[in-house]
């Protein structure tokens, strides 16, 4: 496990200054630096983005599976930020952490050395005899996703024959590829985006991509519950999400909307209807029996919509990128 302790480095600097001044009764180094002091356990693909969100935490990066085991064994973490949803779900089921929350998504990628000595142009080239491949062990998320993709493409057996090494995390795969120890390796797209100068990217076909969701949870034993929850909220805010996207991650998927109530169930074209439900943020369309209507998202639970000129009697739908909600009652156009 690699430990990057930005807060610790700052603490040392502040402490030196304080000692130099022989200042009795000085504030603690963390207080002096204004840090939150949280200990965050995170998958190694988070190495760059989390300190960019807040450099004043203590981060321990490693394989999600290993970090989860450490928390189970009592390691003093405040939050676990996994590279999958299974580890946090497992801890939640064991009462070791609070309810997990999805915070980002990722994409699997094939990375090759900048010089690309094997001339790899497609993931299918990895099936050729003599190619050397590095992958993560299937016990850690990135390795599990790799096997899933290769099985979905029907080429797992051919590619495993070329695997010469297995790592404990994606960062180790990137390192071996960058230094030319192997012809190719499986890692995340974010590993490439963070530093595109050290490796080249071969995309994994979209039709074979696994759904790579990342979930985080506040550790139940954490003495910093309030701060930890504040961190969770910070990770989900738009500023942090933009940093994830900048580093090659995908934005979190909006939940499918639900539509529970119509303010009126009949009206003429031009009438205003208030829709009540959930997950309205990000709504892309509202229709009256298939006829698109002008709408305003008032909040995550409320939309105001104008009955369109060509509306017909029928159900109302609300659609966002994740799905569509349909009213249980029909709206009658007078």
């Amino acid at each position, binding site marked *: 496990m690699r430990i990057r302790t930005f807060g610790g480095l700052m603490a040392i600097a502040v402490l030196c200054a304080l000692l130099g001044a022989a200042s009795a009764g000085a504030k603690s180094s963390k207080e002096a630096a204004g840090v939150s002091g949280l200990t965050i356990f995170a998958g190694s693909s988070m190495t760059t983005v989390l300190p960019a969100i807040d450099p004043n935490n203590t981060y321990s990066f490693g394989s999600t599976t290993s970090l989860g085991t450490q928390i189970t064994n009592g390691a003093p973490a405040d939050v676990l930020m996994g590279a999958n949803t299974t580890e946090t779900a497992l801890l939640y089921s064991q009462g070791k952490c609070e309810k997990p929350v999805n915070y980002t998504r990722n994409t699997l990628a094939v990375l090759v050395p900048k010089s690309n000595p094997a001339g790899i142009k497609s993931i*299918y080239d990895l099936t050729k005899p003599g190619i050397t491949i590095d992958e993560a062990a299937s016990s850690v998320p990135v390795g599990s996703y790799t096997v899933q993709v290769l099985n*979905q493409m029907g080429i797992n057996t051919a590619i495993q024959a070329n695997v010469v090494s297995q790592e404990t995390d994606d960062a180790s795969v990137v390192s071996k590829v960058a230094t030319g120890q192997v012809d190719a390796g499986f890692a995340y797209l974010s590993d490439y985006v963070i530093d595109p100068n050290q490796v080249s990217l071969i995309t994994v*076909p*979209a*039709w*074979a991509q696994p759904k790579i969701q990342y979930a985080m949870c506040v550790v139940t034993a954490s003495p910093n519950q309030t701060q930890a929850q504040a961190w969770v909220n910070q990770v989900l805010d738009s500023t942090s999400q933009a940093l994830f996207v900048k580093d090659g991650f995908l934005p979190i998927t909006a939940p499918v909307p639900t539509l529970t109530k119509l303010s009126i169930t009949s009206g003429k074209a031009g009438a205003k209807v208030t829709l009540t439900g959930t997950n309205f943020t990000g709504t892309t369309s509202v229709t009256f029996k298939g006829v698109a209507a002008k709408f305003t998202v008032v909040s995550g639970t409320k939309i105001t919509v104008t009955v369109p000129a060509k509306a017909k009697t029928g159900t109302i739908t609300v659609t966002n990128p994740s799905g569509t909600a349909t009213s249980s009652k029909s709206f009658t156009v007078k």
Partner: protein
Amino acid sequence: MDALITRAQLISRGAKGGAALAVAGMAIGPLVENAAAALPTMDLAYARLLVGAELLASDFYTQAINAANTGRVVTKYLKRAYANEQEHYQSVAGILSGAGVTPAVSTDITFSYPAGSFDTQKSILALANTLETTILGTYLGAVGGIQTTTLLQGIAQIASCEAQHLSYFTSVSGGKAFDLSFPPALTIDQASDAMSAYTS
């Protein structure tokens, strides 16, 4: 036939009587019947690829129609082609769901196209030709690659439909409505790489 009919309904009809399943259609019927069986790994891989191809086709036709840069007749054919692709999607997705695998849906893949692809009728038809050539080649490749022989009739029927799309869009672009005696089939890696050009 009703493309929105569920796979369970189809199977239920099939169980109640052969005639009902026959009514269910020649394209979806054969695929759904076989979807319940365990399929070889490569057949599942092909099914995933075909689902991806149909999502690409549906996305393209949606954007082409919404661009509103085509004449009335061409728009009519774009809409019909879109409807065909929707039914094809239901069919090939049924192979996966019948085998206990969740098929990809439109929100799973973000497609992207060259700048200006939807600016004029000419550019839309040019891209339609390119995509339909790829999709036809993908289906023809699947006919040669899929091991479960009872899936082949449905796959071939879809390939035939895609060939009709290609023929129309080629001829309306000023090209030959048909030409090659044996249109090329794409291997799974060729098809995958060709489709990857349209994903971001």
